[in-house]
């Protein structure tokens, strides 16, 4: 349904896309997971025909995004990172306008708009000016606008960024329900690991404009054998000192140190902890806390991108508002 092949795009001296490739099977939710600045939004802009790629090619619903942009636009719904709601209009007027521009008319449009608004919990506020909507309501209105013309593929670019945790959880339920009901193909971008884990049946992990890993969330996690060991150190320690301290501990791999945070992988987490603590203690390295966990997507990211998600996020300069 959505195919990207070797997409490249450069903004000034930032290589936003650097040979991005992936495939999305019809009727599935596909997650593009990566930290801010990884190129996810640029990928969405290219696939939705808003921006032109410098190189590579892409097809959506069977149409080339460059040469058949008009057909692509008819087949897709887009919920961009920035809302796109006209806040001077009511929720219903927004949906109706969007439907008209997608070529819908009359009763079909009115019925569809009302049904969607009711489904997304906006039935009672549909005739209120959207300026008064909460963040979560505006997001749900965005989704109603993206779905009004019954698209084949829906693009959700960071749909829950900036929402409260409870609202976010409600949105996840909403999104899964809609996929089932409408038989949609969804491309979801997110920098919330939990979101990708919960919603996507397949995902690609993106770092610096490239896909560094792909597969189902469980497959990706299973590929990492053993438990994740996370030690919070008392003080920032020298990387070399830690590696040499832990060299003697058996069954410990993939040791990463970032400031006061030490991550490693262990065949048997529970057994390894005492040995790790003893080794650190013998080198006078203080420990604040230790956790052992089954592999998470964060660990997957660390493994394939070579840096932790939080570090990648911190390394990205804050995005300037597009003006």
């Amino acid at each position, binding site marked *: 349904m959505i195919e990207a092949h070797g997409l490249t795009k450069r903004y000034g001296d930032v290589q936003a896309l650097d040979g991005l490739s992936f495939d999305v099977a019809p009727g599935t939710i596909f997650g593009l997971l990566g930290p801010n600045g990884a190129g996810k939004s640029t990928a969405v802009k290219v696939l939705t025909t*808003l921006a032109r790629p410098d190189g590579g090619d892409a097809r959506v619903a069977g149409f080339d995004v460059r040469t058949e942009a008009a057909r692509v636009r*008819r087949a897709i719904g887009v919920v961009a990172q920035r809302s796109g709601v006209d806040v001077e209009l009511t929720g219903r007027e927004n949906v109706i306008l969007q439907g008209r*521009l997608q070529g819908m008319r009359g009763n079909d449009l009115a019925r569809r708009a009302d049904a969607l608004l009711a489904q997304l919990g906006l039935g009672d506020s549909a005739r209120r000016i959207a300026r008064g909507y909460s963040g979560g309501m505006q997001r749900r209105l965005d989704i109603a606008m993206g779905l009004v013309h019954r698209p084949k593929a829906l693009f959700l670019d960071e749909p829950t960024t900036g929402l409260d945790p409870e609202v976010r959880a409600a949105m996840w339920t909403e999104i899964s329900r809609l996929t089932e009901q409408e038989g949609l193909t969804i491309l979801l971008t997110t920098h919330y690991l939990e979101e990708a884990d919960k919603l996507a049946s397949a995902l690609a992990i993106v770092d610096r404009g490239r896909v560094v890993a792909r597969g189902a969330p469980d497959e990706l996690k299973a590929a990492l054998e053993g438990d994740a060991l996370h030690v919070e150190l008392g003080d920032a320690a020298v990387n070399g000192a830690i590696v040499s301290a832990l060299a003697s501990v058996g069954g410990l791999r993939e040791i990463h140190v970032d400031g006061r945070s030490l991550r490693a992988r262990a065949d048997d987490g529970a057994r390894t902890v005492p040995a790790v603590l003893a080794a650190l203690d013998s080198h006078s390295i203080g420990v604040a806390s230790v956790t052992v966990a089954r592999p998470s997507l964060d660990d997957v990211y660390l493994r394939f991108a070579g840096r932790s998600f939080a570090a990648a996020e911190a390394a990205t300069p804050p995005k300037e508002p597009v003006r």
Partner: protein
Amino acid sequence: MTAVADTLALTVRDLLRALRQPWFIAVVLVQPVIWLLLFGALFGSVTQIPGFEGGEYKQYLVPGVLVMTAFFSSGWSGMPTIDDIDRGVVDRLLVTPVKRMPLIAGRVVPNLIQLVVQSLVIVAMALAIGVRFEGGVVGVAVLVLAAGLLGTGFAALSNGLALITRQEETLIGAVMFLQLPLTFLSTAFMQPALMPGWIATVATYNPVDWAIRAGREALSASPDWAAVAGRCGLLCGFALACLLLATRAFRAYQAQV
């Protein structure tokens, strides 16, 4: 047909927005009246300058004020587009099947509706203060048509500039930079024979002046229709060029998205 339907849908959107701003409507209706009364009083004694042809100044002034009002309003047509850019509305519209021309026309047509309403207010006010329209209904219609062509051009230009600059401050600066000079480098307030030669020359290249002269000629007792048609032709060309420029501005916009 789709293009017309899309333009209509976008026009309805802008009208709904406008109707929810009663103060905006009040200003739109009152401002042209103020221009007419203010300039009429301020420049009233121009008629006493030797060489001024015709009778009362208010008679001379009406086409000038009407075209100036159209020109001023149209210049600001790009402002809501900047707001749309900031809120992500432009990006949303660009990934619908709507063509670029209706996206511009969706701002130009609401502006034209405002322009016609303002014109009717001016004409009504003029009649109330005793102005006689010798050209009759046809003359008034041609005047409004000329103002509409001018307004189409400048509204499109304003939207094109909005898409290219994306900044309120820049657009405001550009509009202010053009408004007063282009208004005063025309025959809006002063007859050409009384102007310094260079201003009279510059005025002949000024679209604002084309609209004023076309309207004033059509309103006279025995219009020179060839001259009216010539100026309206120039205005058509101007409006078309600005519309094309504005639709091309989407390319510049999308290159930076």
